[in-house]
């Protein structure tokens, strides 16, 4: 149909893997056009501009070190009751098979380290895992954090590559993967109320939502890896009742 090619038909044909890959992130026809706004989009636009020119040619001096960067927003969040000056919010990040089936180079969480709710000021950090109670000692400011050039002052980045790998491969004991769904990563955002006053639980639970942080997955994905992943997942699907490992190969 001229002007409106329906390449989705081609994507269903196994002999067109490239078209399938191009369309794997496409929203369904029934879905509305996603809203383009928010700090997540700003972050990725800056990342794009620093990695490619306006025509889409990758810059030779790009530093992302991967062929794909996936920004994953939390799919669910829950605020837990106040524990003294501590406020805790749990965010779940749902992985799609497309994001998980290739070589993970790096995983980071981008979050707000300083949060202002009304007149109240909170200092926040991220802890992966099913921690039962907050730590007594707040980590030193900036410890273990880096600040890439594309980050604005209010956002902080923490590398969680090792934790993600442990989560992928450690099926025993407590990992920070939600065991009810093998492809959900759970992170705790612990925020300490700085100005000593208490009793603002309601503003805290209502004001802060999914924009507290997001995940960045740096993945090397090539056409060959797509083919390998497809054939591997087919094998795993047949042999392990669909419970396939999320990452097929670890990058040295």
């Amino acid at each position: 149909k001229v002007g409106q090619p329906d390449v989705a038909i081609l994507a269903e044909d196994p002999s067109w893997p490239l078209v399938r890959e191009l369309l794997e992130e496409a929203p369904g026809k029934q879905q509305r056009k996603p809203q383009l706004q928010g700090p997540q989009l700003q972050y990725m636009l800056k990342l794009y501009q620093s990695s490619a020119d306006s025509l889409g040619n990758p810059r030779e001096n790009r530093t992302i070190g991967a062929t794909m960067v996936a920004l994953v927003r939390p799919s669910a969040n829950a605020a837990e009751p106040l524990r003294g000056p501590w406020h805790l919010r749990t965010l779940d990040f749902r992985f799609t098979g497309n994001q998980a089936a290739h070589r993970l180079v790096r995983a980071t969480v981008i979050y707000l380290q300083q949060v202002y709710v009304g007149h109240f000021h909170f200092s926040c950090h991220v802890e992966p895992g099913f921690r039962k109670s907050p730590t007594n000692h707040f980590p030193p400011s900036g410890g273990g954090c880096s600040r890439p050039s594309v980050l604005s002052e209010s956002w902080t980045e923490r590398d969680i590559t090792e934790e993600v790998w442990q989560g992928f491969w450690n099926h025993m004991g407590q990992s920070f993967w939600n065991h009810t769904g093998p492809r959900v990563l759970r992170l705790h955002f612990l925020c300490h109320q700085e100005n000593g006053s208490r009793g603002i639980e309601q503003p805290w639970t209502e004001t802060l939502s999914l924009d507290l942080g997001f995940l960045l997955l740096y993945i090397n994905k090539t056409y060959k890896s797509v083919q390998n992943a497809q054939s591997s997942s087919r094998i795993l699907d047949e042999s392990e009742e669909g419970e396939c490992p999320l990452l097929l190969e670890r990058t040295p």
Partner: protein
Amino acid sequence: RESSVTSQLPGSSRERNGRGNDLCSLHRFQVSFRQLGWDRWIIAPRHYTPNYCKGVCPRVLLYGLNSPNHAIIRSLVNEFVDQSVPWPSCVPYKFVPLSVLLIGPNGNILYKEYEDMIVHSCTCR
């Protein structure tokens, strides 16, 4: 000797040697993602410049065309042995990747580099 052979061959060699505009070369071509119907989830870039190769492969396969030995021999076979063996074709030689910014379901955003998406140079082979 070449000229005498050329004159004996019907048409094709003369066409191959023909006007400079017809020689195998890289042609710039741009399409918008809107035209492809993909602008609903591709944020950047707005346009895609795949380019294409078009033109007649010359009788003497020039060094700059990066033709493999096979193409050179095949052209000789076409000229002197069997015209049913096809003359080398003008096809893409080198490609460069394309970086795309996509927005997916649930507000997730992806930066992706797709390999071999843009023709950078052409060859006869």
